[in-house]
């Protein structure tokens, strides 16, 4: 009995030490994650401009969001951007990764760095730089178009014409993110077993068949990861349109994203309760889309 008691005491002492060691982490998590999370839930049911004054409005913030045309505009812009991210950016990234993976020369490292480097400078820098590229008449983009078409397109105002804002945003993001996603694919491609590819070649499989039946299944987990992460990243898009469109959201809100809508509501208009509600809607939206993507990829695998 006394032996069991001693063991219990040692276990209890160890537990106390365990709690002591995770206490700083727990404290920080409670203070900076759990508490704000709970506070944000509460805030979503109030209209407030700070701690001094607030009025309980029940579900009015959520009702407002779902009747606000700007919300639908921001969702549709974000969705369009996400679709382009997945269907343009990822094939391009994969293509570049395949090219780099196949090439076995000394320039491989240089190209890898060159393609990845746009990501290193960050979206703020890229946004400002591309706002100059897209300038009418004097910008690099219009000068190039005019040179190719014999003068047409010199005055295209990419960032001020509603239908051109999204293409400008997508082009900018392509430049920035293609290299980043390429690195994931390159890492995955380098892990495709060479003996499987050799065996397929011996069995008479051509390059496309090898890619379709060997490479693709091998890199599928990375592909799912990149698709999910790109979608989540697209739904969190903020700095790029904010800087590209010079702290606005484009004509007729054509560059307004969901996070932009949240930021504008909470920090430009000072409606913190509504901002919190938008944050929750965004959270559920991302959660639902990510879940759907994972389900779809599982069904496809099966």
């Amino acid at each position, binding site marked *: 009995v006394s032996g069991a008691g001693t063991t219990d005491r040692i276990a209890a002492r160890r537990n106390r030490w365990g709690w002591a060691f995770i206490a700083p982490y727990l404290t920080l998590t409670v203070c900076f994650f759990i508490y704000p999370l709970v506070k944000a839930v509460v805030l979503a049911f109030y209209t407030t401009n700070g701690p001094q004054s607030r009025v309980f409005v029940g579900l009015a913030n959520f009702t*407002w969001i779902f009747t606000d045309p700007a919300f639908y505009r921001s969702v549709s812009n974000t969705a369009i951007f996400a679709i382009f991210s997945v269907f343009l950016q990822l094939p391009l990234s994969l293509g570049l990764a395949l090219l780099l993976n196949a090439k076995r020369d000394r320039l491989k490292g240089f190209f890898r760095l060159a393609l990845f480097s746009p990501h290193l400078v960050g979206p703020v820098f890229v946004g400002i730089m591309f706002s100059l590229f897209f300038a009418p008449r004097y910008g690099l983009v219009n000068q190039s178009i005019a040179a190719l078409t014999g003068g047409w397109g010199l005055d295209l105002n990419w960032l*001020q014409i509603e239908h051109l804002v999204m293409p400008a945003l997508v082009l900018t993001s392509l430049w920035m993110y293609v290299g980043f996603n390429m690195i994931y694919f390159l890492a995955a491609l380098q892990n495709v077993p060479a003996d499987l590819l050799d065996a397929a070649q011996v069995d008479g499989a051509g390059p496309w068949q090898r890619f379709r039946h060997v490479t693709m299944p091998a890199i599928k987990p990375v592909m799912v990861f990149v698709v999910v992460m790109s979608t989540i990243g697209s739904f969190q898009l903020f700095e790029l349109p904010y800087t590209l469109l010079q702290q606005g959201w484009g004509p007729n809100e054509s560059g307004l994203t969901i996070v932009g809508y949240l930021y504008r509501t909470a920090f*430009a208009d000072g409606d913190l309760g509504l901002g919190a509600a938008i944050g929750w809607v965004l959270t559920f939206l991302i959660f639902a889309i990510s879940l759907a993507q994972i389900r779809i990829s599982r069904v496809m695998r099966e």
Partner: protein
Amino acid sequence: MRFPLGTAPLCLLLIGIAAGVALLGLRALRHQETRRYDLEFVTFAEPHYQDYLKVIKRPTDPAILANPARRRTFEEQHGVTVNVRLVDGRALQSRLQAAMLAGTQVPDVLEIEAQNMGYFTKGPLADVGFTDLTDRIAAEHLAERMVATRFAQLSSRGRTFALPHDVHPVTLAYRPSRLAAAGIRVEDLKTWDDFVRLGRTVVTDTTGDGNPDRFMLDLPENGGHALEILLHQKGGGFIKVDGSLGITDDHAVDVVCWLVEHSVAGGPERIGYPAGWGTAMFQSFKDGLVLFLWCPDWFSKWLEAEVGGLAGDVRMIPLPAWTPGGPRTSSWGGTGICITRASPRQDLAWRLVEFLYLQPEDLSARYANTNILPPVKAAWQDPVFDRPVAFWSGQAIGRLYADLAPETPPVHLTTATRMAKDSTTQVIGSAKQYYADRLDRLPRRDDPGWAAAHQAARQDLRAFVTEELGKRAILIERRMARDRLLTEAAR
């Protein structure tokens, strides 16, 4: 003695303790640092910062100290210390928002861009984080001593929370050589009707490449700064003096239609080109792509710096009036100085505000460095305002700005201003599309029915703009009603 859980947990524990002690120590140091000063003053503008350092801080240079004729700095006059800090405008806005929301330390005195005042004066007046200066302003008769309209954008519901730093009257900058080549005399540009009539003759494809490459005026694609300049000049505004929405008023409809008709959508009526911002805008001006640029006082200094090579071939004129004899200027932007309510030294803070903003001799010296016209009328008597400026072809631009200053319109700001402005620019975008389509359906210009059809298209444009602005106004008013909830609940 051995630590019972082993060396690694012991190291973790020691690192944790060391980090905690370091954090507490740093916090104490920072606390001491801020306590060392009697006042904390923050500005976001580099030129202001450099000037303020000179007049606030006690000089350390013995040569300066030895000069008996020099004016004593604020620190010397009051025997206090002031921490003058420069913080980027966006960072200042967001840090101030965060500090006021969290109730943490804020500066005693700060300069703020007027466009941000709407955010800080939202909700019940008792919640505003800035000191209400209305009574001090009345006691010192500042509304008479300064340009009274400049208090509007720093006020909410009849209470004023800042003193204006500037007037920012707007003129039009041009190159005399380009105007002469285009056959335009500035004396003929008295009203906007004159401006448009002559402007139509200017739009030309001088190189024959199929693209017009000469326009009368910089007109941003969806209104941009031209929208607010013209709207305020006309006597309108996004927000009215009583805080209600102004975008459905006739003034707003007139200005939107004017911008649409004279933009790229306007066909033969076009006089404007969206010159963009920064480098592109200055290049457009240099190349003569646009003959006139909007030129508030702060912009004039920027123009001097960016197109210095044009010195002697640049001048400015007052804005054409909407009606003969009407106001010849507007305003664009503005800064104010505030005292935070949390400041424990309200009187000392007010003395600093007075010291920086109300001393004519300092203000004229500051004008000489920045071209920014101070709102204190007494300062305009200084000869510096009559000094011919070589860049401006010998024109005394200070006197022109000072003469226009009393005509600068009031600008009223709330958190709804942003929504109202965005909505109006959205209407301009859709109206341009509508009008361009409408003009496409007109008969040929030489057709006898053209004039009547064109007039009908203009009327349709007006109806379209009125309807669209009305629709947007309903949404904004819903949002404004949410803001009113807070104010009403506080009563």
